[in-house]
C-alpha cells in the first residue's frame, strides 16, 4: 500500500508540475491574445473600447462599426470588449484604480462622472469635439461640469408608465390618467377586475427610487430642483412632500406580491417579466422596457400591440412642470492619456451614419437629431417625441448625485416601500450622505 500511495502522490505532483509548465508555456500566448495595452507603436495605434452590448444585435453592430472605422483610418486598430453591464462596471472601477482604463468607455454622467473628472481620469471634450456637441444640443447637459463637456451621449431616454392596453380595456379604463387622483381611480378599477395594478423592482432599489425622483420633479419647481441638485441641499419642504406622496401610494397597496424582493428586469419573476406576461397592468420604467419585454416572451413580441405608455401623472398643487421628464442615458467618454484617434472614434460613433444604424437596430434612443426618424419601433418613436418636446429632462438623481449619496438615498426610499421608513427619513439620509461628501 505504501507503494501505491507513493506512486499516487508522485503522479499527482508530476501532473501538477506538468500542468504548471504547460501553463507557463501557454500563458504567454494567453497574455498576447487579449492584450489591453493601447498606444502608438510606430505606425499603428490601438484603441481599447469597452461597451455593454454583449448580446446580438448590438454586439455584431458594434464590431462592424469598429471595422468600418479601422478601414477608414488606416493604422488605427480598435480592440473591442463587449461585456455584461454589471461586470463592465466592476471592471471599469478596477481599471481606473490600477490606472489601466480603456480609451473609450461608457459614462452615465452626473456625480458618477464627476468623481472621474476630479481624479483627472476623463478627457475634456469641449474643444476637440465642439461640432459634435453642438449637434447633440441640450442632451449633453448631464455630462457637463462647469460648462465643460466630458461625455458625448449616444442614447438618452425618459421614464414613464408602460401599460398593457388589453388589461386596461378589460378593467374599463378608457383613458390614461393625467393626474394622481385619476391614477388612484385607475388602481381601484384594476383591483376590482382582479389584476395586480403595478409591478416594481424594489429588490434592486433603483426602480423604486424613480417614483420618489418623479414626485420630487412634480412637487418642486425647476429652479428649486436644480439648485438642490447642484448644491446638494434638500432643505426645501417640497422634497418631504414628495416622500409623503410616495407614502400615500405605498399605502394604497397597488404593487405585485413580493415586490420588496422583485428584481427589475432579469429573469421570469422580474417586474418587466410580470408586465410582459400579463400578470400586472403597468410598470414605471425607462426606454429599455419594450426590448426587455420582447426578450421575456415566447414569441419575442412582448406586449406587441398592447404596449402603451403614458407620462407620470401631475400632482395637484405641485410646483413642478407636469411635462418635465426624468431620464438618463449613456455617453461615450475618452480616458485622459488616450491617443487622439480615440477622440476621432468617439466623434465617429456620434456621427449621423452610426447613430442611424444604432436607431435601426433598436439599440436605444439616439441623441443625434439626424437619426431620430430611423427608429422603427413605434413605442420608442413615441418616446423620442416626448423626450424632444419636453421642457426639462432631469437626470436620474442617483446618477446625478454620485454613487455614495445616490446609494444612501435609494436605500431610504426602499425603506419607505417596506413601510419602515418615512418621508423625512429620505431627506435626512440623502442630506447626511451629501454632507459627508463635502
Amino acid at each position, binding site marked *: 500500500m505504501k507503494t501505491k500511495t507513493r506512486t499516487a502522490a508522485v503522479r499527482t505532483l508530476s501532473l501538477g508540475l506538468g500542468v504548471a509548465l504547460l501553463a507557463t508555456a501557454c500563458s504567454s500566448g494567453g497574455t498576447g491574445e487579449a492584450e489591453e495595452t493601447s498606444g502608438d507603436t510606430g505606425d499603428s495605434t490601438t484603441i481599447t473600447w469597452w461597451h455593454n452590448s454583449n448580446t446580438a444585435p448590438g454586439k455584431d453592430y458594434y464590431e462592424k462599426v469598429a471595422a468600418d472605422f479601422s478601414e477608414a483610418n488606416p493604422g488605427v486598430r480598435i480592440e473591442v470588449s463587449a461585456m455584461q453591464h454589471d461586470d463592465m462596471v*466592476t471592471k471599469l*472601477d478596477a481599471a*481606473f*484604480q490600477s490606472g489601466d482604463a480603456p480609451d473609450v468607455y461608457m459614462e452615465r454622467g452626473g456625480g458618477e462622472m464627476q*468623481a*472621474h473628472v*476630479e*481624479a*483627472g*481620469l476623463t478627457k475634456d471634450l469641449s474643444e476637440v469635439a465642439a461640432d459634435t456637441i453642438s449637434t447633440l444640443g441640450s442632451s449633453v447637459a448631464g455630462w457637463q461640469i462647469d460648462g465643460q463637456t466630458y461625455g458625448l451621449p449616444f442614447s438618452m431616454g425618459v421614464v414613464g408608465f408602460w401599460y398593457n392596453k388589453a388589461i386596461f380595456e378589460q378593467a374599463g379604463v378608457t383613458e390614461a390618467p393625467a393626474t394622481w387622483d385619476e391614477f388612484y381611480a385607475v388602481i381601484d378599477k384594476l383591483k376590482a377586475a382582479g389584476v395586480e395594478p403595478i409591478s416594481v423592482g*424594489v*429588490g*434592486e*432599489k433603483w426602480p423604486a427610487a424613480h417614483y420618489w425622483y418623479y414626485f420630487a420633479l412634480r412637487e418642486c419647481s425647476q429652479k428649486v430642483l436644480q439648485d438642490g441638485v447642484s448644491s446638494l441641499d434638500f432643505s426645501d419642504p417640497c422634497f418631504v412632500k414628495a416622500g409623503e406622496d410616495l407614502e400615500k401610494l405605498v399605502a394604497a397597496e397597488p404593487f405585485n*406580491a*413580493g*415586490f*420588496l*424582493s*422583485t428584481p427589475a428586469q432579469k*429573469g*421570469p*419573476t422580474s417586474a418587466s417579466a410580470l408586465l410582459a406576461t400579463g400578470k400586472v397592468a403597468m410598470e414605471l420604467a425607462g426606454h429599455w422596457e419594450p426590448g426587455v419585454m420582447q426578450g421575456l416572451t415566447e414569441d419575442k413580441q412582448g406586449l406587441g400591440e398592447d404596449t402603451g405608455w403614458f407620462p407620470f401623472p401631475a400632482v395637484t398643487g405641485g410646483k413642478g412642470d407636469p411635462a418635465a421628464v426624468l431620464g438618463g442615458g449613456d455617453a461615450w467618454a475618452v480616458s485622459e492619456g488616450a491617443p487622439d484617434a480615440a477622440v476621432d472614434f468617439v466623434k465617429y460613433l456620434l456621427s449621423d451614419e452610426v447613430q442611424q444604424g444604432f436607431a435601426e437596430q433598436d439599440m436605444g434612443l439616439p441623441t443625434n437629431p439626424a437619426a431620430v426618424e430611423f427608429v422603427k419601433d413605434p413605442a420608442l418613436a413615441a418616446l423620442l417625441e416626448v423626450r424632444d418636446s419636453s421642457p426639462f429632462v432631469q437626470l436620474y438623481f442617483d446618477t446625478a448625485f*454620485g*454613487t*455614495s449619496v*445616490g*446609494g*444612501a438615498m435609494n*436605500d431610504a426610499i*426602499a*425603506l419607505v*416601500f*417596506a413601510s*419602515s*421608513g418615512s418621508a423625512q427619513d429620505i431627506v435626512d439620509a440623502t442630506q447626511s450622505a451629501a454632507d*459627508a461628501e463635502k
Partner: protein
Amino acid sequence: MTDVADDTTAPRGATVSPATSTTQAPVVGRATARPTARVAGGRRGPGPAWRKRAEIAFFVAPALLLFLFFVVWPIVKAVQFSLYRWKGFGPLVDFVGLRNYVSVLQNDVFTDALQHNLTIVVCSILIQLPLGLAIALLLNRRLWGQGVLRTIIFVPYVLAEVIAGVVWFQLLQPQYGVIDAVLGVVGLEGPPQGWLGTPDKAMIAVIAVLTWKYLGLAVILFLAGLQGVPEELYEASQLDGASWWQTQRRITIPLLGPTVRTWAFLSMIGSLQLFDMVWILTKGGPANATTTMVTFLVTEGTKRQNFGIASAASVILFVVALTFALLYQRFVMRRDTQDPAPRKKAHR
C-alpha cells in the same frame, strides 16, 4: 485558536502538543546515545541548529512568501485605506484618522448586520449540529448505496454559490415558486409577499438555504469522525445489551466531541464572513433585513465607492472574528488541548 486542529488529537501516540513543545525533539535523546549517527539537528551545538533553522526556512518559505505577498500585503493596504476617505481612484490624500471607524460603528445598518451575523452563527450551529449528527449516525449504519448517499449529501457544497443562489431564488418566488406550491400541497401557505420579500421571513429563508448548502459538510466531517470510534466499544456495549440509541448517546456522541468542536469553530468563522449566498438571494434586503457585515462593506465599497468605510468595516469584522476565535479557543477548546498525561518520549 492556534490549537484549533491540535485539540482533536488525543495525547496518546505520536502527537505533538504545543503545551509540551518546549522539549527537544525526541531524536535528540536517541542520537546522542549513538555517537556514530550523523543526524540533522541531532546534536546540540551551533552547526546543526543552524542547519535545522535553514531547513525550516526552506520548507516554510514558499508558502509563507506566497501568503505574505498575496494575502497579508493587500490586507495591510486595505487597513491603510481605512484611515482615508477614498473613492477608489487617484491618490490617497484625504486622511481622516479614525472617523471611518466611528461612522461605521454608529451606522444602524452595520450594527444590525452584526446582529444578523450573530443570529446566523447561532442558528447554523443549533440547526446543523443535531441534523448533521442524526444524518451521520444514520449513514453510519450499513446501508446499501452508502457511498452514493455520501456523495449526494455533499453535492450542495460542491455547487458554486452563483448556481445555488440562482436556483433557490427562483424556488422561493411567491405564488409561482416551487416552495410555495409544495407548501400548498400540505395545506400551508407561504407569506403573501414571498419568503424573500417579507422582512420578517427573509432571514428564515436565508438560513434554510444556508443549511441546505452546508449541512453536507457537517455530515461528512461527523462521518469521518465516527470512523474513529473503536469497534471494541460497540461490541462491548452490544454485549452489555445496550440499544442502538443508548450506544449512540453514551459512547459515540461524546467521542465525537473534538470533531464537533472543530467543525463548530469553522462554522462560526464562516458565518461571520458570510456573503455570496446572501448577496445573490437578497442583496441584504428586503429593507436591510438580511444584511451581513460583508454585504455592508461590499455595498459601501464597490457600490458606493466609499473604500475608507469599507476597509474600516472589514477591520472591525476582523477584530470581531479574532475575539470570537480567541474566546472559543480558551473556553471551548480548552478541554481538548490539555494533556492529562505528560509525554514520556522526550525523557528517553
